[in-house]
C-alpha cells in the first residue's frame, strides 16, 4: 500500500513537471558570439610575438652592457618592443602568479595582493573572480589605441551574469534578469547606464567591483567567451608593506584580551579568546556587511581603548588604512565592528604533541600533532589562521592542504634572510611522523583531522602553548 502510494505521488509529481517543462533550446552549439580575436588572427599574432620576442632578445644582447650607454640602449630596445608586449599579453595566459596593481576590485583585491591565475575556468559562477587574459581583454583595456598597460597587472573582474542572463546597468545599479544585484563591496552607484545585453550561452558578463574610476560602459564586459578568456583566480598571499619582523609583532597578553565590548547587552566573557567580526581591513572606512566580505571576518582583539579597538592583522596592507596602519595590527573605531566573543579556537600543546579544537557548538576534537624540530621550533603564542589553501608541494609529507597562521618562525625567518616565515597547520599522509618533532616549525595533523579543522572560520584563534 505504502509502495503504491509513493509511486502515485511520484507519478503525480512527474506529470506536473512535464507539463511545465519549457521548450528545448534551439538546435546548435549555442548562440554565436562575435568577438574581435578569433583563432586565425591569434595564430598570426603568435608568429608576430615569437618574432618580436626574438628581436627583443637579440637587441638586448647586442646593445646591452654594463656601461650606461649600453643600459640606455637596452632600455630603448625594451621601449620599442612595447607593442610586442601588448601582443604577448594578448595570448591566452598560462597558469601564473601576478600582483594586483589597480584598486578597482577593492576590497576583494587591493593593490599589492598576490594572486595565482590557475586553470582556465569552464564553469564560472556568479560572484567568482576571474582573470581575463585574452586578446579581447587587451583590446578592451586600451592596447588597441597604442596604450600599454604593463602597469595594470592581471586584469581581474567579478562574474555578474551567466549564459542566457539579461544584464544591464541602470543609473549605476546592475540589473540581472530585471533584478537589482547589490554591489558586493557596497560601493555607491557610479551613475552609468547601458543597454540591456543578453549574455551568450558560452559566455559570461563581468565587471569591476568599483566602477567609479571607470564609469564608462567599457568597464563592464557583457559577453566574454568562457573557453579561451577566463582563468580562475586564487588569492595566494598578500604583499606586505613591510616584512613582518618579530620585533614589530604585538605581544598579546591576557590583559589585552580581557576587555570586550558588546552591543547586544550580552555578558562579555573575559576568559575566552576574543575575536571581532570586522570588515576587510582595507575597508574599515567603507562599511560592507561582514557576510559579504571575502576576507577573514574575525580578528583577534589586542586592545580596546575608549571607542577604538585594535586587532591583529593577519596580513598587512600597503595602502588604504592610512594612519591607522601600524606594523601588524590595525586600529579603528569600535562602532564599525560587531565585537563578540567566539567559542572556536585551536589549542596546541607542543610538549604533549596534541591539539584540541573547539567548534562553535562546543564540541571538541583532539589529535596528535607533529611539530617543529629542536633547532627550528614551532613558535609559541596566540595567533590566528587567516588563509586556507591546497598543499604545496603535493607530497606525502604535505597532505590535503594547509591553514596558514600568523605565527612567524624567527629561526626560519632569519634563515631566509629576514623574510617572514608564517607557519601553517598542515594535513599529512605520513601519519608515522605524528607525535614527533620533525617539521620546520609547521604543525601537522592527519588528513582526517585537518579536514575537520578546515571547517573552522578564517580568523579562528590558534594558541600554541
Amino acid at each position, binding site marked *: 500500500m*505504502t509502495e503504491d502510494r509513493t509511486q502515485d505521488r511520484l*507519478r503525480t*509529481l512527474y506529470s506536473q513537471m512535464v507539463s511545465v517543462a519549457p521548450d528545448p533550446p534551439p538546435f546548435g552549439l*549555442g548562440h554565436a558570439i562575435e568577438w574581435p580575436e578569433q583563432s586565425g588572427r591569434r595564430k598570426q599574432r603568435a608568429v608576430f610575438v615569437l618574432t618580436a620576442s626574438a628581436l627583443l632578445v637579440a637587441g638586448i644582447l647586442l646593445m646591452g652592457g654594463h656601461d650606461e650607454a649600453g643600459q640606455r640602449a637596452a632600455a630603448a630596445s625594451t621601449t620599442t618592443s612595447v607593442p610586442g608586449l601588448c601582443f604577448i599579453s594578448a595570448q591566452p595566459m598560462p597558469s601564473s602568479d601576478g600582483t594586483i596593481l589597480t584598486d578597482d576590485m577593492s576590497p576583494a583585491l587591493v593593490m599589492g595582493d598576490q594572486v595565482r591565475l590557475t586553470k582556465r575556468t569552464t564553469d564560472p559562477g556568479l560572484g567568482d573572480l576571474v582573470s581575463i587574459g585574452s586578446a579581447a581583454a587587451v583590446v578592451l583595456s586600451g592596447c588597441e589605441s597604442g596604450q600599454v598597460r604593463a602597469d595594470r597587472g592581471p586584469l581581474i573582474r567579478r562574474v555578474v551574469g551567466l*549564459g542566457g542572463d539579461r544584464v544591464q546597468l541602470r543609473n549605476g545599479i546592475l540589473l540581472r534578469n530585471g533584478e537589482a544585484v547589490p554591489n558586493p563591496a557596497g560601493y555607491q552607484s557610479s551613475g552609468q547606464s547601458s543597454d540591456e545585453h543578453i549574455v551568450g550561452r558560452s559566455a559570461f558578463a563581468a565587471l569591476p567591483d568599483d566602477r567609479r574610476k571607470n564609469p564608462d560602459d567599457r568597464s563592464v564586459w557583457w559577453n566574454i567567451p568562457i573557453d579561451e578568456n577566463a582563468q580562475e583566480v586564487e588569492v595566494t598571499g598578500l604583499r606586505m608593506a613591510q616584512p613582518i619582523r618579530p620585533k614589530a609583532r604585538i605581544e598579546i597578553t591576557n590583559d589585552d584580551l580581557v576587555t570586550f565590548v558588546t552591543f547586544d547587552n550580552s555578558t562579555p566573557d573575559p576568559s575566552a579568546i576574543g575575536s571581532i567580526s570586522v570588515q576587510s581591513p582595507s575597508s574599515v572606512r567603507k562599511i560592507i556587511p561582514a557576510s*559579504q566580505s571575502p576576507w577573514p571576518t574575525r580578528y583577534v582583539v589586542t586592545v580596546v581603548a575608549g571607542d577604538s579597538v585594535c586587532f591583529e592583522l593577519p596580513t598587512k596592507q600597503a595602502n588604504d588604512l592610512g594612519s591607522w596602519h601600524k606594523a601588524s595590527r590595525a586600529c579603528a573605531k569600535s562602532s564599525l565592528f560587531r565585537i563578540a566573543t567566539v567559542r572556536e579556537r585551536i589549542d596546541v600543546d607542543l610538549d604533549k604533541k596534541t591539539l584540541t579544537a573547539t567548534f562553535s557548538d562546543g564540541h571538541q576534537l583532539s589529535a596528535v600533532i607533529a611539530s617543529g624540530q629542536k633547532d627550528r621550533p614551532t613558535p609559541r603564542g596566540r595567533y590566528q589562521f587567516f588563509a586556507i589553501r591546497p598543499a604545496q608541494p603535493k607530497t606525502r609529507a604535505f597532505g590535503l592542504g594547509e591553514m596558514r597562521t600568523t605565527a612567524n618562525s624567527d629561526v626560519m625567518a632569519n634563515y631566509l634572510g629576514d623574510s617572514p616565515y608564517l607557519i601553517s597547520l598542515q594535513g599529512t599522509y605520513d601519519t608515522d611522523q605524528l607525535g614527533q618533532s620533525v617539521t620546520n616549525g609547521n604543525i601537522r595533523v592527519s588528513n582526517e583531522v585537518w579536514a575537520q579543522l578546515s571547517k573552522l572560520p578564517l580568523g579562528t584563534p590558534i594558541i600554541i602553548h
Partner: protein
Amino acid sequence: MGWEREEAIYREHGPEFMRFAVALVGLSNADDLVSATLTALLNGGRWADAEDMRAYAFGAIARQASSMHRSAGRRMRREQRVAPSFVVAEPAFDDPEVWRCVSALPVRQRAVLYLTYWEDLPVRSVSTMLGISDGAVRRHLARARSTLRRSLS
C-alpha cells in the same frame, strides 16, 4: 553542417529530453542541462554512430546532470560566500514534499526513477540508456524506493 541526423532526432525528441532534464535537475537548470548535453554531443561527433540516438542522448543527459550536480554544488558554495542573495527558486509543486525528497536523491537514482515510473521502461532499456548494468539499475531503483518510502512515510 553535417548534423542532419542529429538535428532530426533533436527536433523529434527535444521535448522528451527537456522533460527528463526537468526531472533530473529541476525547472531552472533543465535548459542549461540540455544545452550543455547537446553541445557535448555535437562536439563529440559520435552521436550519429549510436545504434539508438534517442537512448544515447538520454544517457548523455544523465551523465551531464551528474557533472552539473557536482559543479553546481561548488558554484553554490562560492556564490553563497560572495553574494548570498543569488538564490534561484523552484516553482512550487502540489506535493512539495515529494519534490524535496526526489531532489535529494543522487542524480543516477533520479534518472532511474523517472525512466521507470514515468517512461515505463523495463530494466533492460534503462540500463542501455544509462550505460550501466541491469543489476545496477535494480540497485538504484531499490535504494531510491527505500529512501522515498522512509522519507515520505
